[in-house]
């Protein structure tokens, strides 16, 4: 099998085997702080009955979480499959009638993750020896075999020690028996080889054990999902309420006010028609101009709510139309075989709108590239500019708002903007495409 590998494959194959025993050993080293944490938790639990444990439990649980989070992060980094945090969110209003200390205690003990953490930490030092630490220990033992056969065997023999290397006795006449010396070296080599070979598998077994206790249970996953949904629903309601307020204000100050003024002008014209036709004609022209302005304002308002090209053609052409109106040269690549649901389409469109505005306003870019693709049930939009970079989600660039807006559809946003550029904003929204056009 190794023979069929390319050079690149072989290098990664060797690389993972070389690293795994070391990673496993480092995980095992975590057993020492783990034992301290477990002792603390044991103490707290055993003191619950006399009341002293109650204020101790929350801090002990917190300590446990920090410890298990170290495991989660390391295992995630070394096996490439992260372990999610299972902790239930604090829901406001639960245990509301209790004192603060009682509430903290109840929160800690009512979260199953606390007890799962506890079980994990208690067993981990033993489990680690037989899983992730085993390859490293085998290698160390193998090296010891080499040392015995080279010189340590003679030293031990000289001082009259009685010892065994696996099933080979190490005694005074050790150096006089070549089959023992060679056997030790061969066994040592074997142990080292096995240690390196089983390294990744052992790391994986250990990760499975850790995931079983440290990962979220189905129930915790649901609870976390509910929390996410509650948050994003809240955001969505906020956003649409603010949007409605803006529309109401725009209509009130704009078109509505103009129509009122036009009505008044028309009344005046009616009045003037016989007395002063010249003045009436003047007012009439003004009124017509006013009606044109009212139309223009309504047009802008509608464009802000739902741009016509978006409604007609979908997000691809709408972004192309946006690019044409943009002050910078924008290159748009669209590979969408259909159209997403209208709300998703609209959210993605306005997100890209915001990013293009940022590119023009803040980045000092000279060119912008927009890419829209759909793969494996995910719509991906990437906006790249060649500006000076250094953008952040916090700096009031409106990206937080974009994140919240697409969060309603379980979309995520990633920003890469090193100082000196380029800035790349990627957003992904899970959605299906429909091939038929919107009604």
């Amino acid at each position: 099998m190794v023979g069929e590998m390319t050079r690149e494959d072989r290098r990664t194959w060797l690389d993972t085997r070389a690293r795994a025993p070391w990673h496993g050993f480092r995980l095992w080293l975590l057993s020492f702080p783990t034992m301290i944490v477990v002792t603390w938790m044991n103490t707290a639990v055993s003191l619950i009955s006399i009341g002293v444990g109650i204020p101790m439990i929350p801090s002990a649980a917190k300590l446990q979480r920090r410890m298990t989070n170290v495991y989660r992060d390391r295992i995630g980094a070394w096996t490439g499959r992260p372990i999610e945090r299972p902790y239930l969110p604090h829901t406001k209003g639960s245990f509301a009638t209790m004192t603060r200390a009682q509430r903290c205690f109840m929160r800690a003990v009512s979260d199953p993750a606390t007890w799962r953490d506890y079980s994990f930490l208690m067993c981990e030092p033993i489990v680690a020896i037989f899983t992730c630490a085993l390859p490293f220990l085998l290698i160390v033992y193998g090296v010891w075999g080499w040392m015995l056969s080279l010189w340590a065997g003679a030293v031990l023999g000289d001082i009259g020690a009685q010892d065994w290397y696996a099933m080979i006795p190490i005694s005074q006449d050790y150096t006089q028996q070549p089959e023992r010396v060679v056997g030790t070296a061969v066994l040592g080599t074997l142990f080292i080889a096995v240690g390196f070979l089983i390294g990744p598998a052992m790391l994986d077994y250990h990760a499975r054990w850790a995931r079983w206790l440290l990962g979220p249970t189905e129930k915790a996953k649901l609870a976390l999902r509910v929390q996410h949904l509650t948050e994003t629903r809240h955001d969505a309601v906020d956003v649409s309420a603010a949007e409605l307020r803006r529309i109401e204000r725009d209509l009130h100050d704009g078109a509505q006010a103009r129509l009122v003024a036009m009505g008044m002008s028309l009344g005046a014209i009616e009045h003037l028609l016989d007395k002063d036709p010249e003045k009436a004609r003047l007012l009439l022209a003004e009124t017509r101009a006013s009606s044109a302005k009212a139309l223009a304002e309504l047009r802008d308002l509608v464009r802000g709510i739902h741009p016509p090209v978006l409604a007609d053609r979908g997000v691809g052409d709408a972004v192309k139309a946006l690019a044409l109106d943009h002050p910078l040269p924008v290159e748009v690549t669209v590979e969408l075989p259909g159209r997403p649901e209208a709300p998703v389409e609209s959210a993605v469109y306005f997100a890209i709108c915001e990013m293009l505005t940022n590119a023009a306003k803040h980045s000092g870019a000279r060119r912008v590239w927009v890419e829209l693709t759909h793969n494996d049930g995910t719509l991906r939009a990437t906006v790249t500019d060649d500006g000076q970079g250094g953008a952040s989600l916090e700096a009031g660039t409106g990206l937080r708002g974009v994140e919240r807006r697409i969060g309603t559809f379980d979309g995520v946003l990633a920003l890469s903007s090193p100082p000196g550029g380029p800035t790349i904003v990627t957003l992904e929204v899970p959605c299906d495409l429909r091939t038929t056009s919107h009604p």
Partner: protein
Amino acid sequence: MRVVLAEDLALLREGLVSMLEAHGFEIAAAVDNGPSLIKALLDHRPDVAVVDVRLPPSFTDEGLQAVLEARRQVPGLPVLVLSQYVEQLYARELLADGTGGIGYLLKDRVFDAAQFIDSVRRVAAGGTAMDPEVISRLVARTTREEPLARLTPRELEVLELMAQGRSNAAIAQQLVVTERAISKHTANIFDKLGLAVSDDDNRRVLAVLAYLNR
């Protein structure tokens, strides 16, 4: 002059019919949806068509699609497209074949009957009538770049009016100067933009639009 009219709002359709008839046009057909529009365009082969972008049954850019399809079959079929909004993207698509006979105006422009009828006639004659809003956005986008930045403000003004499809005489009238002054301006503009000078009004306009649409 025979006109095919497509507009789904009955009130507006009747208004347009009476306005066009009052100015001596003959209405060959007045339709209210995309499929019958394309049939009317191909059956009647009108001298000019006046078409609303948004039409049933889909209420998207059905009118625009019908017009583009008809012009693929009858190249150069003069069409004036009306819309509640003007979009550069659609303007580009209409102008893409480079044969002229295209108008693209905001519906508001109907308020000014004289100008609107003038636009219809210009399109029927194979000219262009682009909405000032399309042109000003096109120009605004390009003016930052050379060589448009080298035009004087007056020349920019002339360029915008020219891109809308106006003749030298019409531009002169609008800016209250002599026609000779305008031809001097246009010569300067063509020189600065490096475009070939043409005496033909329509070809000249198309060259300017193509330049702005790059």
